């Protein structure tokens, strides 16, 4: 059986999220991730979903570290892990700083009112601190970005080794994940991008003296079945938006779309979204998304698998009814 996970958007009503999580569980999905952004608190929502499901893994996909202190994330993780009977997957990311913010929901500075400080060092400190707190010892930690002194958690964690997945895209973050994380969550990248970045993961694992094959590699893939107009429109829009983001631009250039993305980025930046969407060719969308007939997706997922992805995470960008239909279909196909 193919390992498969689902990523839902936090702007959906709770009842919709409950239906989706239950449907994924019935269709034998391995896990259900929730993004957070500017919508719902993912930890709180997962706790509620825990009371409505029995076995499916429940993950933050992802929580932005700067929104909470490292201690707080540990305290939240333990509460969710207890409420879900050890089903939490702790997905963490750094988000985007003001320097790179384009179009999306804003930068860490603007949205949260905190500095986007030392993303690599902060992520390292967060993960180290969270792991130590979960072990239940008195924590004395001196990090480059965060330090703790004699903090002792007063509730024994139900699981001291809650898996921590890192959102990573660029080489340094991928290397850090190789060094310290239990898994990676890539977002909207092509199989060839993963192949190219893999040496960084292996190097990072070497530094951490770990076996890189034991690091779980997940990738969120924008998903739009051909029969869903809404999903198709939204996936096209999401890809067009990514054409204006530096990280993705590099990837699309390497895939041979330099000319196209230049134009699309210009259109996005002047706010002409519709023309940007119309100017985004199918081949470009297809390089990072699942579109068209779901029956043909097994082949595409095979490409991801060959590149090293162990856990594809589909992200259907559509309404509840169509999403439920897709969950059913994918479980029949895979």
């Amino acid at each position: 059986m193919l390992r498969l996970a689902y990523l839902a958007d936090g702007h959906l009503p709770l009842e919709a999220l409950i239906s989706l999580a239950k449907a994924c569980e019935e269709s034998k999905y391995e896990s259900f991730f929730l993004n957070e952004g500017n919508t719902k608190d993912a930890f709180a929502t997962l706790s509620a979903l825990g009371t409505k499901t029995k076995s499916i893994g429940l993950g933050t996909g992802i929580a932005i570290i700067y929104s909470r202190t490292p201690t707080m994330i540990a305290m939240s993780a333990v509460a969710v892990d207890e409420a879900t009977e050890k089903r939490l997957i702790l997905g963490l990311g750094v988000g985007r700083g003001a320097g790179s913010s384009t179009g999306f929901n804003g930068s860490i500075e603007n949205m949260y009112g905190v500095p986007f400080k030392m993303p690599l060092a902060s992520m390292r400190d967060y993960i180290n601190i969270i792991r130590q707190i979960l072990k239940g010892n008195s924590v004395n930690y001196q990090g480059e970005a965060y330090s703790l002194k004699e903090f002792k958690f007063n509730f024994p964690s139900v699981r001291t080794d809650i898996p921590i997945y890192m959102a990573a895209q660029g080489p340094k973050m991928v290397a850090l994940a190789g060094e310290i994380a239990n898994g990676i969550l890539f977002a909207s990248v092509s199989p060839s991008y993963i192949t190219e970045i893999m040496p960084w993961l292996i190097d990072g694992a070497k530094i951490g003296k770990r076996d890189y094959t034991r690091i779980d590699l997940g990738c969120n893939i924008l998903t739009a079945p051909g029969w869903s107009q809404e999903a198709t429109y939204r996936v096209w829009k999401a890809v067009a938006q990514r054409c204006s983001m530096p990280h993705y631009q590099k990837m699309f250039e390497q895939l041979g779309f330099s000319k196209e993305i230049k134009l699309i980025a210009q259109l996005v930046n002047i706010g002409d979204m519709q023309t940007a969407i119309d100017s985004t060719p199918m081949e470009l969308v297809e390089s990072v998304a699942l579109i068209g007939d779901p029956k043909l997706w097994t082949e595409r997922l095979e490409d991801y698998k060959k590149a090293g992805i162990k856990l594809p995470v589909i992200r259907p960008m559509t309404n509840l009814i169509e999403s439920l239909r897709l969950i059913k279909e994918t479980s029949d196909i895979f």
Partner: protein
Amino acid sequence: MARTGFAIGGQIPRTDVIELVQTAERRGFETFWFTEGSGKDALTQIAGVGPLTTKIKLGTGIVIHYTRTPSLLTMTLITLDEITNNRVILGLGTGSPKVKDNHGVPFEKPLGVMRDYVTIIKSALKGGPVSHNGKSYSINGFQLGFPAPRPNAPIYVAALNPSITQLAGEVADGVIFYVMTPDAVKEVLPYLKLGAEKAGRKVSDIAVTCFILANPDDSQEGIHSLKLQLSGFAASPPYKRRLSESGFSKEMEGAAKALANGDLNGAANAISDRMAESIAFIGDPSKWNDLINKYRAAGVDEPIIFPTGTSQQSMQLMRKALSIDLE
């Protein structure tokens, strides 16, 4: 039945939490409060019991504002309102300088940060993009991606002294007192009014709550355990000041000295019976209504019973505390 709350610590196993909150709901308690400290996330715990209750309000008592950003707190508040069908109260406190050691963030401008947080959260709940350029905290264009089920979801502020009580009067929907005698409540409440008037609000619209420690075990051991807990406040400057100003300076000095020498017994023994009895519920819950009524007479709308005790018997003691027949 007069409005009464019940509170628990952040270290209680979930099965026990579920039993306690469901019992409190059945027995007619108005609110169930989750403290956090160095235990489980109070807000996530509320999410976990929300679907298992129907009426009782669920509050945080309290979460320290520094631990989360105001944008996130807004997101959490709407998440919980949706899960609980609008039964949530967000109780915020400033914490103490310990926040540096415990959370790795500086304890700077606690009051200013509180003012900015409450202002930002209240304005973000309304749904539009929020830009707030505060003296202590600023955000630029945060907007909720999900509409708030209740744009006026209540925010309470924890207060120990006049200045933060006044701030609560200015900006919050309620105030949460802790380790205050009924007399101390009476002394501080005019500042709530002052703050409310300054902001053009009615003080009667602001809920006054007070956490009151309780130990249903009045054996020598039980009283000792309560006194030990009270003596711990001598180690925290804001609490020490509060209690010293409430007429217990001798107790606080004695406890502080003993604690500095690592003498826990000595610290507990420095706490007088007079102090314990005027600030906490002791012994059989049937005897607690006297003190509850003193708090109500002092102006507390919602006294909150906060049981303490040694860990082995704490569940038993909390069950006993919940058995109180409220007047």
